[in-house]
């Protein structure tokens, strides 16, 4: 195995750049932003993004795909093979979400970033326990402090989108038509 000091393979050729990106992405354990790849490969971001898109297209017939989210790029198994993949990776942890959990998740999803007390106000009940469960299961995460109340803010995660089969928050079903015509009910 070569060491870091060894001469870096030239990446002027698109095929070489593509392959170098594949090599790096194979060892990541979290999504990688194109910018970070560009830095490591010492190539312009635009060229790296072009390569990533080219790669993603090249996997069309494969059992995996190269996905991009707000957090970056990474490989994932193709959804239709989930039944087989789950036989390997499920740690007995895919239990169904309760109704309370889904409702809480819905409020966080549409109001994020949002404090626990605001979620509780919408649901009319204490949500501390449910929020803890959702956090432990990686469906929501803390996202700083609310400037006015000092309460911890929460937002949904990539795993949440993944679980619903959504590509981004923009794909959430619109809620506006369901809501009463009140500018901000919390102010009442």
């Amino acid at each position, binding site marked *: 195995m070569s060491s870091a000091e060894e001469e870096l393979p030239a990446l002027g050729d698109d095929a070489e750049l593509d392959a170098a990106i594949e090599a790096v992405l194979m*060892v990541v354990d979290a999504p990688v932003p194109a910018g970070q790849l560009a830095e490591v490969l010492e190539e312009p971001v635009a060229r790296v993004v072009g390569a990533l898109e080219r790669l993603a297209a090249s996997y069309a017939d494969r059992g995996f*795909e190269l996905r991009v989210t707000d957090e970056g790029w990474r490989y994932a198994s*193709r959804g239709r093979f989930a039944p087989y993949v789950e036989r390997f990776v499920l740690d007995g942890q895919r239990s169904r979400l309760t109704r309370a959990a889904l409702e809480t998740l*819905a409020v966080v999803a549409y109001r994020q970033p949002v404090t626990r007390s605001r979620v509780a106000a919408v649901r009319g*009940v*204490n949500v*501390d326990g449910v929020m803890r469960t959702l956090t432990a299961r990686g469906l929501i995460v803390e996202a700083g402090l609310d400037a006015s109340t000092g309460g911890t803010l929460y937002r949904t995660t990539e795993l949440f989108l993944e*679980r619903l089969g959504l590509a981004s928050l923009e794909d959430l079903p619109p809620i506006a038509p*369901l809501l009463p015509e009140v500018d901000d009910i919390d102010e009442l």
Partner: protein
Amino acid sequence: MSTAAPERQAPDRPGFQVTLENFTGPFDLLLALIGRHELDVTEVALHRVTDDFIAYTAALGGSADLEETTGFLVVAATLLDLKAARLLPAAEVEDEEDLALLEARDVLFARLLQYRAYQQVAALFRELEGAARRRYPRAVSLPPELAALLPPVDLGVDAAGFAEVAAAVFRPAPPPMVGLDHLHAPSVSVPEQVELMTARLRLAGRLTFAQLCEDAAHGVEVVGRFLGVLEMYRSRQVALDQDEAFAELAVRWAPGDDDSGSAALDPERS
């Protein structure tokens, strides 16, 4: 006519024995009750389900914790206010109270509709979750040959410091310092309220609900007493008088009128 019509129906109606389903909060219960009557979210619907809502809240009292019950009681108080207001001739309502009540009603509607929107979306989430052919991200450990390149790991603490870190993790979080005083709901026990009202009614024979509540310190206690009156009525210990529609509600001590009543709250009654 000596008994207000809505209350008279209550003991005979099978629906009065509210089943203790798992409702995820007061709005959930309210929507479920309204749905059961196949009604839309209107003021009429709120009036129709008030009794059932109160009955459920009363049943909840024994099994749920205080904070959970409080959420139900706050909504119950608003429902009772609304229902009471409809019984009063409009002219007698003070402008300021009237306004406050209208606002309370609008807030309740808004929150109810808002909650319903999230509930509908949550149902949609359930469908999406079921249909999602889930992709699993590649999130693998570093191969050993690469892990070997990492600099030696430094914990940054010694054994004693490590124990401190562990203790900090395991230490129970202090309860959030949110004041609950404004909820005025330290411990309103319906049985206690029944006991108190029983004593007074035995002495006085007949009291208006307003008189029964004269010394109530706050709204939740009024709700507690109202729940108590419902309980006493259900167990045939009191009769309810109302001379005419919208007139004042009076509670008359009348134990054992009909002993087929389901529950006896006070073993000493006679």
